[in-house]
């Protein structure tokens, strides 16, 4: 089946078969990353601009490496969205980048929906690298890629997402990806950060860590950003940790072969204790490596590459 999409804006809009295509393409690129020369000529001559209006060093570097391993030229800039809202609009900034002959824009933005907006304004592909509290599709793709590596088929597997769900784009994209792949998803955390509205997205909502973790195959932790939420969503980081932090005892409630995931950066001692983060069950660093392969696949496909034509190494 050929790949048709020009943009990658959300997981919500993808069909299950499209997720499978991306994952299969990523698997081929993942093998490239194990080679001595980690480079294929797929996007040679193309210029990709990483427009990061909400700074994120990790995601930006991952996209940058993915673009370079595909032989694209890549230009990145981190700027706070406020510097553009001060004067130039997102439309003007992006149209300028397009006029400079960029072939693709990877957008990180603090406002939900801005990649969709940009895709309507521009003629070139737009890849969403995280928009507000909406979606972070490549993160979810690398997460399910990693889960499949460890667990195989996700159908019927029990995945628990723990933490700040309300403000998390990672959670939303993962909920869409996991439910499309047939996993059984429970979201858990304080009621103010895990509102019942999420049930409409096909997940179970729980505020009881013990029952939620029982028999889990995957525990995905999210970063707690107390400073972002103001004062009203939970009392303190200390209280959060005492109620919902993943420590040695609580980690024993999951299945023995369960894996522990985190999109990073980790607040050690807050949402997760160090001994758990560094334990053999943790796949946090594999997630990072897989992220490059998944982003290579996304850039490659949105640039017009086809899943079945993956690629000989550059000599």
């Amino acid at each position, binding site marked *: 089946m050929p790949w048709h999409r020009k943009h990658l804006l959300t997981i*919500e809009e993808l069909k299950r078969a499209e997720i499978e295509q991306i994952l299969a393409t990523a698997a081929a690129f993942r093998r490239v990353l194990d080679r001595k020369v980690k480079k294929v000529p797929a996007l040679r001559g193309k210029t990709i601009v990483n427009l990061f209006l909400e700074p994120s060093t990790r995601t930006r570097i991952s996209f940058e490496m993915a673009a370079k391993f595909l032989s694209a030229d890549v230009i990145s800039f981190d700027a706070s969205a406020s510097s553009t*809202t001060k004067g130039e*609009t*997102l*439309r003007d900034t992006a149209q300028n980048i397009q006029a400079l002959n960029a072939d693709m824009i990877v957008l990180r*933005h*603090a*406002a*939900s*929906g*801005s990649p*969709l*907006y940009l895709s309507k304004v521009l003629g070139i592909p737009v890849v969403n690298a995280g*928009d*507000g*509290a*909406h*979606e972070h599709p490549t993160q979810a793709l690398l997460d399910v890629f990693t889960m499949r590596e460890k667990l195989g088929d996700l159908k019927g597997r029990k995945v628990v997402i723990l933490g700040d769900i*309300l403000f998390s*784009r990672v959670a*939303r994209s993962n909920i869409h990806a996991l439910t499309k792949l047939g996993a059984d998803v429970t979201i858990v955390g304080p009621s103010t950060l895990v*509102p019942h*509205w*999420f049930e*409409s*997205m096909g997940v179970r909502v729980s505020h009881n860590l013990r029952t939620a973790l029982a028999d889990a195959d995957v525990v995905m932790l999210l970063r707690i950003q107390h400073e972002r939420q*103001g004062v009203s969503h939970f009392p303190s980081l200390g209280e959060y940790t005492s109620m919902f932090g993943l420590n040695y005892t609580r980690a024993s409630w999951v299945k023995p072969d369960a894996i522990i995931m985190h999109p990073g950066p980790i607040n050690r001692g807050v949402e997760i204790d160090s001994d758990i983060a560094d334990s053999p069950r943790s796949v946090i660093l594999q997630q990072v490596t897989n992220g490059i392969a998944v982003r290579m696949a996304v850039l490659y496909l949105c640039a017009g590459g086809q899943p079945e034509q993956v690629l000989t190494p550059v000599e």
Partner: protein
Amino acid sequence: MPSLIIKNGRVIDPASKRDAKGDVFIADGKFVKTLTPAQKKQAKVIDAKGLVVCPGLVDIHVHFREPGQTHKETILTGSQAAAAGGFTTVVCMPNTSPVVDNAGTVALIKSVAAAAPVHVYPTGCITVGMKGQALAPHGSLQKAGVVALTDDGLCVQSNELMHRAVEYAKMFGLSILDHCQDESMTEKAVMNEGVVSTRLGLKGWPHAAEDIIVARNIILSRYTGAHIHMQHISSAHSVELMRQAKKDGINVTAEATPHHIAFTEDALATYDTHFKMNPPLRTETDRLAIIGGLRDGTLDCIGTDHAPHAPEEKDKEFDYAPNGIIGLETALPVCLDILVKKSKFQLSHVIDLMTRKAADILKLPAGTLTPGACADVCIFDPGEAWLYNTYGAFSKSINSPWDKQTLTGRVKTTIVSGQVVYQNGKMLV
């Protein structure tokens, strides 16, 4: 000014319980029972065969942006949009720049409005600078000519200040209009809180934040006897609170907008900023409750909340776009569609909501065809389908969710004080 005869129309004037085929006579800017033979000879005749002839529409909630933001709208362009929509009387909100918290700004607005094609009444602020901290000079504002007080766009957060405001304004016979929003619950919120905001990752504005202020205002009205009018009600629970308050005989009124009866939060699925408004579009339950409130009289009238913004201001990331849409040129066809066609209201009931009942809230001299009244008339074809295109329409702004849609029901002629100001797509003054 020549006399006017509007012939053969279906004349609907809920104020005088008239709904029948007939003629309407106008002399010297007023409705008259009939014309003298001499007047008849010279009179201009408008043939309204197949059309509805009703009082000029009344909107007690518009934003005309003058002074200060005339790139969005001026009193003149806003009034032209009103005339094109069949409105002959509008009440404009005081959140201009500067805000209308002093007699000088009222005088300025009145002097500009004197040249407008429709009757434009200013309102003044409840609080100085709309800051919610100190009472504006209600007495001086009333003397200068405001017809009500409101901090619309914002809501007076202090219960004590609101208590004193309604008590003080009552002395001057001024109603307080309130935009009901507990701001502590809606910081950075851009749409209704619920399943859609959750899915879109947008900050939600819970209807409870409106309900709490509606309840507060009902309590304050009961306590002081002052009249408080709730602007643009958006939630089912607020409708319920109003229903009980009216049963209890409390001196409160409320309005609904065409957009809150036409759309729900589902319209935001693609982050289209033309559906971003405050209060936000809510659920189907809320939408139906508002229609129910209009049906049984719990909600008193339709107000457009005509809120012009320049295209580049709406052409933005959803979080950064301003709230509000224009509505004067689309209100009548939208209400005909949602209320008459889809909700089986009598046509005369909808006209009542847009004329007499709206005027009565602020005791404005408008909203009837009764002899002696100011001759403001709207003549429309309830069945004509037409393409609404904001380019080429009369408002200076184009922020309408109905842009390029086919609407049914079209204003043919608008008459203000006996003068034809708008006819067949053209402004005549």
